[in-house]
Structure formats: structure tokens, C-alpha cells
């Protein structure tokens, strides 16, 4: 095709271009993959400074009103919480009552929300459905329910259509100093906001009882808020047991306050002493890589840096910070930047070495957290209900010597939260101006979707090209072979000639069977968890054995296309067809995944694309017996080994944490956590990654 005769009429240029690319697919795919990886590494350089997109937010335009009165009142409250004797008092008056009492004294409405910790059960059919009414656990004990305390401030002149939520998770059984301080910050805000006249949205303070986990408490409350069940058949048990020992009647009517505009989770932790300033850690990743609107992060960042002199941090991968290759890469980019600037002072894409390394570490962590699909805190629940939420973790060195300067932390944290609430309160519309799809490279730098799509596009682009070229290649070879076969009159295979263009169906069938098997593998843990309750290692082994077993059964039932022993001569040549269809399937899977969770697709492409492109029967390489073929075979084997999901997991883990105390069962735990959080990464792993891996193994061991 490429060497078509010049006398022939030329095809259209676009077709010519396509044919050119297909015929040079090897070079193009190598170039594209290299460019994809390079573009990914270039992202920190391309990151833009954040800016506040929504004009109505106007952060910091009003001076903070939080006074020392509020703070000293909050301090008294903190002291009460800290000195609260959990041992003796827990029977008579819970800490919830203490919080509720203070909310009422401040002039807010209060109610208690009882909930049972809900078992996160894997339900493969409910992956993408909206949050559902939970079914309470059957065999709960009566004492195990948690009690959230919820306080409300009704905006004086507002119409009550919208609300801002403050969440302070604390353990009601044993409240730590940090949790008490976060309650104190919320208390100071609450005491201020009951008096102000500028409120347009109602304020909800959710003091979430985190004895069963922060996430569970917030999730239970949000579920009750949005999808309550009125059929109280299961609840009657629960009500009869409600606060039997306390004499006071607890307000159990569930109160509500309109549509939520934004939610802030406030936490205080004990920071390191070395830090010069207090640090504010921001956590934003919700389930399946969803992020809150960038404006929310911008406002918090702006107010923390400019208003309260805090150092804002987002999570980063510590192991990357002192890796030699990243440093040399950073120096390279720095040199390039300086050269470019010397050419033209306006080309200002230079980036300092430290900045690049920090940016890459943050970007990697951002990518990793999004790809995992597991929320990084209780803010993740809100995103499931289309509410923008963020966790603000104030890591203060002063928590330790809180006794000496108690007011400072409360004042600082309180003013920050007040500023954010004031900004959100200004909003006329819900957050919509700024980005929802972005990666952070630092608290004030981001990579938007338009930029971070480029590496993925470059990585995925060779897949259809190589598939097409392989397909063309194999059809040409087979037709050539068949003409040879047809010329010899001894064995004229008439059906083979007539169906030669449908030959890829064999390969497609194999690929389909393997993907179908992938779907079965996805569902297997569900049945495993139904049947038995055993240690993770056993579970993992039984999962692997069952998977292998189903693969054998499927092969026996659905056809022998997977069996390598019984193959006639024409099928032997089909490994190129098989590879072509595999690559096409991988490309489809990656593209679909990129819509659901982009970061997963990006990381998945980094692993899948080289493996799929490299795969080639080992026998062929063994026959060739050259250095090139040997290297190729070795690369293939190494890639196949690395990309096997458990191996990949342990490698990631080794890179992030270190392999010191890694156990074989950890992989099972990780997978379990993925499906309990309803992460689409799990589905991707079982239904795209694993089948592709199996097919590549199949290609490798193809007899030639």
C-alpha cells in the first residue's frame, strides 16, 4: 500500500497520512510513547497559577469579625471537653449532650442523629448508581450506635434554601486534644455566626461521632439527610433504646436546612515542632477521582496564606523528593528554561529545581489518590451528593503547648473558617465557574484537563495505529500464504479462502472469552466474602485459584481457541491478529476508563501500553537468536512480570512506603478496600488490565 505505484491515482491526503502512519507504526508508536511519558513529566512545568474565577466569592474583602469573646468562650468549651471524664460520665451524660447544650446556649437549634455503622459490602451491581438508602446491619449490638450532634443556625433574613456545612469529626469515646480543638474552632465560629446579620445561607455544624470512623458517621448523616426512609420498621428497636439513662429528652427529630452549597471538614492535628509556621493541609480527593471545584481550594488557600499566615500544603509523595533521577530531570528542565529565556526573555517557562521536584511529588500524589478512587477523608461523601467539600487539617505546633497560648490557634483557625464561610455565603450560584477536572502541583498551581489529557492521548494514540498495522500485516501475510496454498492443487481449502477476511473473528472470540472471564473474576470476591470469613492470604489464594479454574472451564466450554496444543497451521500465524484485537480492546478499555476516572486510565496506560505493544511470541525471538531478539524477549518477560497486578501493587507500595513490613495478604486487603469504597479502579483492574495481561501472556507463549 505504501509502495503503491505512482501512476495510480493518489488517494486523499488524509488517507495517505493514515497509511503513512500505519506503515511506520513502529517508529510512530515509540515516538508517541516517549512523548507521552515526557509530556507527563513536563506537566509541573506547564502548571498554571490558580486564580479565583467566581467574582462573587470576594475572599478577604471583609475584615474578620471573630472576637476574643467568642474565642474565650470556645476555650472554656474546649477545656470542658478535654476535662470530660469519659469513664464515669459516659453513662449519665454523653459528650454529645455537652456539645448540644453549648449549641442551644449559643442560640442554635440542635438535634441528635443516631446511626449504626454500616458495613461496606461489595455490591457489583451498584457501582455507578447514586447513593442508596442503606440497609442497617442485621446483627448490631445496641450499644454500638454512634450519635452525631447537629447544630443549626437559621440565617436571620435568608429564605433557608441553602446551607453551608461544617464538620468536626471527634471520637465520642475518647476525644483527643486535636479533636477537642477542632470542636473549639467550630464552637467559636458558631458563636459568632449566631449573632451576625450578614448570613444568607443557613449554617449546619455536624459534630460527627467518629468512633466507627469519620467517613461512616458523615455518610450516615448525609444518607439520612438526602434519602431518609420513612418506613420505620427497623428503627423501632433503636428508638426504644434511645438514651434510656439520661433523664432529658433528646431532640431526635431530624432537622434539615435546604440544599448544601459547600462543606468544610475541620481537623486539628499535632504538627511537628520544627515547622516555622502552622501548616494547613488540604485534602480534596473524593471517590473515583472526583474533585471539588477549584474555587473552593483557591479561597481556602488565599485566605490561609494571605489572611492567617499559614503554610498551605497538599499531600505529596515523600519518596520522590530525594530521588536522583527526578533531580537530574529538574536540572535539565531548569537549564532548558534558562536557555530559552536567554533567547527570548518572554519565554518564561523556566522552573527552579526545587519547585519542579515539589511539583512532581505533589502531582504524583494527586494522580495516585485520584487513581485509587478512595476518598482521602470525610469530605469524600459530600461529593457523592454533588456538594463541594474539602478537609482543612490544621497541623499546629501549638497543640502541644496549647496550655500556654490557648487563644491563638482558635483565633487563627476560626478566622480562616469564618472567611471561607463568608465567601461561600456571598455566592449566588453554586460553584460552577472554575475547574472540576484538574491535578494540583502545589496549593496554588494546577494542571487543567486540557493539558493533562495530552500525555494520555499520546500514550493511547499508537494503540489503534499498531492494531491497524498488525491487522493489515496479517491479512496480507495470510492472503499471500493462501495464494501459495491455492496454487498447490493438493490441499485447496475452499472455506478458508472464502472466509479469509473474517479470520479475525477467531482472535476476537479469544479476546472476548478472556474479557468475559475478567468480568467473572470481578464478581468472585463477592461470593468469597459471602461464603467464608478467613484471613486475607487464604482469600487471595482462593481468589487466584478460582480465577484460574474458571479460565480453564471457560476454555473447555467455549472453545479451544486458547489451547495452544491443537492448532492447525493457519491458526499459528494468527498471533498478529490476536495481538491486534487485544490492543484494540485495551484501547477501548482505556478510553472508557478515562471518562470515568482519568487518573486511573493515565496510570493504567503507562503500564498497559508498553506491554501490549511489545508482546511478541517468545518462540519467534528464540528462533531468531540475535542480540536484538534476545533483548526484546527479556524486555517482554520483565514487563509481563511487572504488570501482573499483585506485583505492580507491591512495587507501588515499595516505592511509596517501603517493603519492610509488606505481607502477601496485603494485596487482598487493598483490593477489599477498593471495592468497599466503590472504586471504579477495581473494575478497571479486573476487566481491562487483567484480561490484557492474560492475553499478552497468551501471545508470549504462542507456538510458532
Amino acid at each position, binding site marked *: 500500500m505504501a509502495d503503491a505505484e*505512482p501512476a495510480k*491515482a493518489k488517494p486523499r491526503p488524509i488517507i495517505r497520512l493514515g497509511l503513512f502512519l500505519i506503515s511506520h507504526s513502529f517508529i510512530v508508536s515509540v515516538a508517541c510513547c516517549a512523548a507521552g511519558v515526557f509530556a507527563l513529566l513536563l506537566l509541573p512545568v506547564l502548571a498554571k497559577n490558580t486564580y479565583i474565577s467566581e467574582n462573587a466569592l470576594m475572599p478577604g474583602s471583609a475584615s474578620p469579625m471573630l472576637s476574643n*469573646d467568642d474565642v474565650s468562650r470556645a476555650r472554656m468549651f474546649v477545656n470542658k471537653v478535654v476535662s470530660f471524664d469519659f469513664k464515669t460520665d459516659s453513662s449519665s451524660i454523653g459528650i454529645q449532650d455537652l456539645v448540644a447544650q453549648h449549641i442551644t*446556649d*449559643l*442560640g442554635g437549634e440542635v438535634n441528635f442523629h443516631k446511626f449504626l455503622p454500616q458495613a461496606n459490602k461489595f455490591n457489583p451491581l451498584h457501582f455507578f448508581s*447514586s*447513593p442508596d438508602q442503606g440497609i442497617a446491619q442485621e446483627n448490631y449490638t445496641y450499644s454500638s450506635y454512634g450519635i452525631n450532634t447537629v447544630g443549626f443556625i*437559621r440565617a*436571620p*433574613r*435568608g*429564605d*433557608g*434554601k*441553602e446551607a453551608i456545612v461544617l464538620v468536626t469529626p471527634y471520637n465520642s469515646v475518647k476525644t483527643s486534644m486535636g479533636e477537642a480543638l477542632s470542636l473549639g474552632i467550630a464552637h467559636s465560629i458558631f458563636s459568632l455566626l449566631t449573632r451576625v*446579620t450578614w448570613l444568607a445561607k443557613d449554617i449546619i455544624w455536624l459534630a460527627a461521632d467518629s468512633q466507627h470512623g469519620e467517613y461512616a458517621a458523615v455518610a450516615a448523616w448525609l444518607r439520612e439527610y*438526602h*434519602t*431518609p426512609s*420513612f*418506613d*420505620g*420498621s427497623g*428503627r*423501632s428497636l433503636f428508638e426504644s433504646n434511645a438514651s434510656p439513662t439520661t433523664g432529658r429528652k433528646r431532640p431526635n*427529630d431530624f432537622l*434539615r436546612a*435546604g*440544599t448544601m452549597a459547600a462543606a468544610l471538614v475541620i481537623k486539628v492535628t499535632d504538627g511537628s515542632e520544627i515547622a516555622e509556621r502552622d501548616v494547613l493541609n488540604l485534602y480534596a480527593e473524593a471517590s473515583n477521582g472526583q474533585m471539588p471545584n477549584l474555587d473552593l481550594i483557591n479561597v481556602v488557600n488565599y485566605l490561609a496564606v494571605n489572611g492567617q499566615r499559614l503554610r498551605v500544603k497538599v499531600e505529596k509523595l515523600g519518596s520522590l523528593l530525594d530521588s536522583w533521577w527526578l533531580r537530574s530531570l529538574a536540572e535539565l528542565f531548569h537549564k532548558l528554561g534558562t536557555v530559552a529565556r536567554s*533567547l*527570548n526573555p*518572554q519565554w518564561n517557562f523556566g522552573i527552579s529545581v526545587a519547585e519542579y521536584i515539589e511539583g512532581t511529588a505533589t502531582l504524583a500524589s494527586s494522580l495516585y489518590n485520584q487513581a485509587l478512587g478512595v476518598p482521602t477523608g470525610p469530605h469524600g461523601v459530600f461529593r*457523592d*451528593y*454533588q456538594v463541594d467539600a474539602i478537609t482543612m487539617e490544621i497541623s499546629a505546633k501549638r497543640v502541644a503547648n496549647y496550655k500556654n497560648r490557648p487563644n491563638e490557634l482558635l483565633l487563627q483557625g476560626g478566622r480562616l473558617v469564618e472567611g471561607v464561610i463568608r465567601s461561600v455565603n456571598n455566592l*449566588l*450560584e*453554586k460553584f*460552577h465557574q472554575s475547574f472540576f477536572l484538574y491535578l494540583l502541583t502545589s496549593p496554588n498551581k494546577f494542571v487543567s484537563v486540557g493539558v493533562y489529557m495530552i500525555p494520555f492521548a499520546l500514550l493511547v494514540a499508537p494503540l489503534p495505529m499498531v492494531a491497524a498495522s498488525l491487522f493489515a500485516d496479517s491479512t496480507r501475510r495470510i492472503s499471500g500464504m493462501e495464494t501459495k496454498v491455492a496454487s498447490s492443487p493438493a490441499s485447496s481449502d475452499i472455506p478458508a479462502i472464502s472466509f479469509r477476511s473474517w479470520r479475525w473473528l477467531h482472535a476476537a472470540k479469544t479476546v472476548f472469552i478472556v474479557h468475559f472471564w475478567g468480568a467473572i473474576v470481578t464478581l468472585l470476591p463477592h461470593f468469597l466474602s459471602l461464603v467464608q470469613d478467613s484471613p486475607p492470604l487464604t482469600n487471595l489464594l482462593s481468589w487466584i485459584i478460582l480465577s484460574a479454574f474458571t479460565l480453564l472451564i471457560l476454555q473447555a466450554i467455549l472453545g479451544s481457541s486458547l489451547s495452544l496444543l491443537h492448532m492447525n497451521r493457519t491458526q499459528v500465524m494468527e498471533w498478529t491478529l490476536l495481538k491486534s484485537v487485544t490492543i484494540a480492546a485495551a484501547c477501548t478499555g482505556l478510553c472508557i476508563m478515562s471518562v470515568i476516572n482519568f487518573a486511573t486510565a493515565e496510570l493504567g496506560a503507562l503500564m498497559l501500553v508498553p506491554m501490549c505493544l511489545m508482546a511478541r511470541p517468545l518462540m519467534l525471538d528464540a528462533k531468531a537468536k540475535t542480540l536484538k531478539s534476545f533483548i526484546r524477549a527479556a524486555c517482554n518477560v520483565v514487563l509481563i512480570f511487572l504488570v501482573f497486578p499483585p506485583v505492580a501493587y507491591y512495587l507501588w507500595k515499595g516505592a511509596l512506603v517501603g517493603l519492610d513490613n509488606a505481607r502477601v495478604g496485603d494485596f487482598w486487603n487493598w483490593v477489599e478496600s477498593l471495592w468497599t469504597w466503590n472504586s471504579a479502579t477495581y473494575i478497571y483492574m479486573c476487566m481491562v488490565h487483567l484480561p490484557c495481561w492474560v492475553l499478552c501472556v497468551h501471545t508470549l507463549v504462542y507456538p510458532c
Partner: protein
Amino acid sequence: MVRLRSILLFLLLFKSFGSIIAEEEDQIEQFSEALLLRPLPDRKVLAHFHFESKVPPTRTHGSHHHLFPKSIYQLVHKFRVREMELSFTQGRWNYAHWGGYDPISSRNAKPPGVELWATFDVPQHQVDASWRNLTHALSGLFCASINFLESSTAYSSPQWSFKSFATNIRYGTLPREAVCTENLTPWLKLLPCRDKAGLSALMDRPSIYRGFYHSQRLHLVSNEFDLAAASSGMVLEQTLTVVLQPVTLGSGMTSSAGSIQQPSWSLSSLFGRKVSGRCVLSHASNVYVQLELDLVSELKTTSETQQQYDVENLISQSWSDMSFEMSESAVRVIQEANGFQKESSLLYEFSLENFSDSRPFDLEFRWKRPVTWSSQLAPLQAHRFLMGSGNERGAIAISLKSVGRSEYAKSSVNDEGRCSLRVDVFQVVPWYVKVYYHTLKVFLDERLHSLADVVERTNVSPSEDKVSPGLMEIALRLPCDVHSVILTLEFDKGFLHIDEYPPDANQGFDIPSALIRFPEIKTKMDLFEDKSACKSPILSKLQEESPVLWYTEVLLVPLTTPDFSMPYNVITITCTVFALYFGSLLNALRRRVEEEERLLKSKAAKPSGPIGVLLSKLSAKLRGNPLEPPPPSSSSKVSYKLILRVILVAGIAAAWQYFYG
């Protein structure tokens, strides 16, 4: 003749300066003003201004007026309005703290924004036209966007749940209308003294808009067109209800033993102004202070510990050992006649007769001891909320919770001796929230009940896309001992056309307040007083029976909004597609394949170097003919040349950039 008499009367009014001619009062125009103040349990004060203008029917009185606003008179005559109510409200009435069972709350608690309803005395087919004209007229009159109620998607005609025995009624609300002074000024213009004199002089704008609730209302009744009945002309009732927080000196927040000292207040501390006399055109100008039933009984128990207490003590206004005191002494104290109960609420009446600029009226109410009490609540507490999440569907839930009092039950025992309570629910839903009325579910005490058990009467008119809103009227018959009732309705969220979105589409869309009505539970005050003294219109209003009403919250439904920069993107992509399409089409039409091939062959015969190519190009340019490219001698040479050219151009560009950029 009539005119002459009215002028005479007017002069007489001026001369007598406030002394009112009692006889013939039905035959003259009347204006009265009153202010009712009531301390509220949550340390706030309710101030309720009440102005009433009456005019005798045109038949007997003519169409010339001295007090009655001409604009309203013309409005009534032009659109033949029989009854009309317009309210501008900011904030929410707090039914739990400020009461929901007294005449003031059931009449003056209104949904946020604008609410307008009217009944017309015109044939059925003209009602809509009259309504449309009326909304435009009112829009101009009150500087508000009431004209948006003109569209048929904005108003509805309730049959029986909003107002019993009303035909030709139209009802519409604008929940998002912002209320401010621009609406108050035209409203004040309808008063004969405006805000220059009398009680309306208290309306200091910053003070009244600083309040927690602000509702200005205009209620109009006219019997002008009732030929049969004894016509009483037109009555225009204007009320302004505000809930204010008195300024507390020092920190009143600190609580001691659970009881909080109520803040003391005076007219000047609430409004920043004093009353310097009455409006001379009014025939009654009074200030009332109301003590609620629960407060009166609370006062009794607190003072009982010290001294023998009697209601007489309160009535005789001997403040020495009371929990509170007032700076002025009331003209009279009116006690509510509550047949069965010992306690009753009290009304202190103050007259503005004797006050003037030199001695302004500034009532001061001082609390001496902490007192806590609670207001009378409606039999069921109603709330409404949205369920579900996402952009596809959701549900509206209306919850009615019992407050745990059974005294209301007495009035409604039905024939079989079983106590029951009737509740009417009136709900209007805009068309883009597509409610499925068949999904209505009723939960009684957390158990699903069949509709037939509970629902007595329904009237549902489903919404029609872009034509009319959905209207639901349900009458529930509930057992008295019910604790909680929950109604749920599922809906789908609709799509709007791009030009139907408001400018702030991302805010979401409002579902107006639902109205919960207890038609069998009437509220009124039975006041002990001699018939001759019953002059004040506000008192007669309080004595009128009215059903207990409860407006629920406004809901905000986030709908899917398009990306509003999309038209730009669409235009761009459409243009690109068109350019590509027409380009290739013209190319295909224009090209003659054989001709080209022949040319190619003839060109291939001629040898041509780079200079020759340039020359032929130049000559082709000069001739104005399209250039036929020479056939490539070999592909490698072409690509070599191409690369060379590209490098050349890039080099020039880089040099240019370096030296001049």
C-alpha cells in the same frame, strides 16, 4: 350633593381634630392606625402595624375620595377585583418560636418573596385577562417584578384548599423577589399621612429592614359589584409585620440556670424613633401590647412565690411586684375571654391622643426577672424538604409532626365519635419539575398507609410543559393522636430551552412554599369588652375567625444547566465542519481527473529544475491561472525539498523572533 356632604364632613373632621363622629360612620371614609407589640419567647419583639382605610360604596358615596388611595380605587374598578392580597416578605416566620396558632401569625406569616392572590368579579373567561392586567398594574405601582406572574406558567387557580368558597381566584408567588425600601415607599404612599406623622413615622428604614422577619401586606376587600348584598364599599388593610431583636446592652448571652433575661425594649430602642402624636386624619390611633397566654400564666407562677397574685394585678397595672413594667399606663386592659381556661392573654391599649411633638410617645417595656414561656403552636408542625441527589430525579417530602398537645382535638370530633383532624395541603410546582402525582405516598407514624384511608379529597392538575404549573390540593383526614405524617412525591427534573434559563441558572430553581391549612381549627381572640368600645379595626380583625395556616419552606432544586459558552463552541465547530465539507465538495466538483492526468503526463515530459519551477509559478501567478504542480520526479527528492523549505522558514522565523521579538 354627595360631594358637598363629604367636603363638609372633611372640614368637620379637621375642625374637631380627632374627635370622631360616631354616627354615620358607615357613610364616611375612615382611616385608622394601630400598632401591636408582643414580646416573643426567643428574646425578640413582634411589631405589627395595622392601617385600615374604608370607603363607602360608590353608589352612595360617589367616586371622590379624601383618604382612600385613588390608585387602589381605580385598580378595583378597572379590573373588578373582589378581593386581593399582596405581600412582600423577607425572612422566614419562625413558627416554633413565634407561634402559629394566633390570628396574627396565621394572617401575617407569609412565604418569602411576593405572594399575590386575587378574586375577580368577572365572567370565567375574562379572569385570566384581568389577572394579567392586574399584575402589570401592581408591578408598576409597587416597583416589583410582579409582572412575571402574568405568564401562565407562574400562576394557578386553586379550587378549595387555599381559600374556601372562592371562585375566580388566581394565585401566584415569586419566591426570589428581593424586598426593599423601593417596595415600602409606594406602600406608604397609600397612607394618608404617609410616614410623616402617626405610627408610620416609626418606620425607620434601617431599623425595620434589620429585623429577622419583614412582611408588608396589602389586603383589599370590595363589595362594589355585589348589587344584592348590603354593600359596605371597599376596605383596604395594610399591615407591616416585623420581628426585631432589641439591642441588648452588655452581654445578655450568658445564661444562669437555664433561664435567660429577656431584653428590655422601648419604641425608641426598637425603631430609633418616637411617635410624636397620631396621624390627624385617622379616627383611631392606638398602640397595643399583647401578653400571650403562656406568658400570663408564667408570670402568675413566678410571682406567686412572693405574693398573692391575681390577674387583677396585671390588669390594674401595679408593677411593683411584677416581672416587668411599662413606662406608660394603659388606657384600658382587654382580657381574652377563654371560656374554659383560667388564664387568658392580655392586651394593653395605649392611645396616642395626648401625645405631641413636645411629649412624644415612647413606650418602654422593662423586664425585671427572667421569664421563659412558649408561644401557642399550630397543631402540626410542617416542614418540606427535597430527597435524592443527582440531576435526574428526586422527591419532595412534606412532613407534619405533632407538637404533642391535644387541646386542638376537641373541636373536631366527627360523627362516629372518633377524633380526627383535617389538613389541607396546597402545593404549586413549576412545570420543569415534573411531579408524578401517582407516586404520592402517605406515611402515618412511620407506616405506609393507603391513600384511601387518609385522603379525603384531592384535586390535581398536572403541569403542562411551558404552559402551566402543576397544582396539587389534598385534604387529609388524620386521627388526632397521630405523631408524624409524611407525604412524598417523586419528580423528574426537566430540561429547559437555552433561552428559558434565568441569568443565574446555576443557583437552582425554586419550588414555591406549600400551604398547610387546618380548615377546622379556627383561631380568633374573644375579647372581653363592651360593645361600644369596639371601635378599633385591629381588634375586630383579631376577633375574626380564620383558619390556622402554615407556609412551608421554599425549596431549591438544582437542575442541569448547559455550559453557557456552548453556543460559541457550537458555532465554531459548525463553521469548521461546513468549511471542511464545502471545501472537499468544491474540490471534487471542480476537479477533472482525465484532464489532470493528461497535464501531468505532458508536464512529466518536460525537465524542470528548481529555477524552472519558480519561473513557471511566477508566470502562472502573472497570468492569473491556477498553478498545476509539476509531477514529482521522485518522492525522496520532494520530501528533501520540503524539509529544506520548512527548515528555511523556521530559521527565518527564529531569527526574526530573536532579533526583533
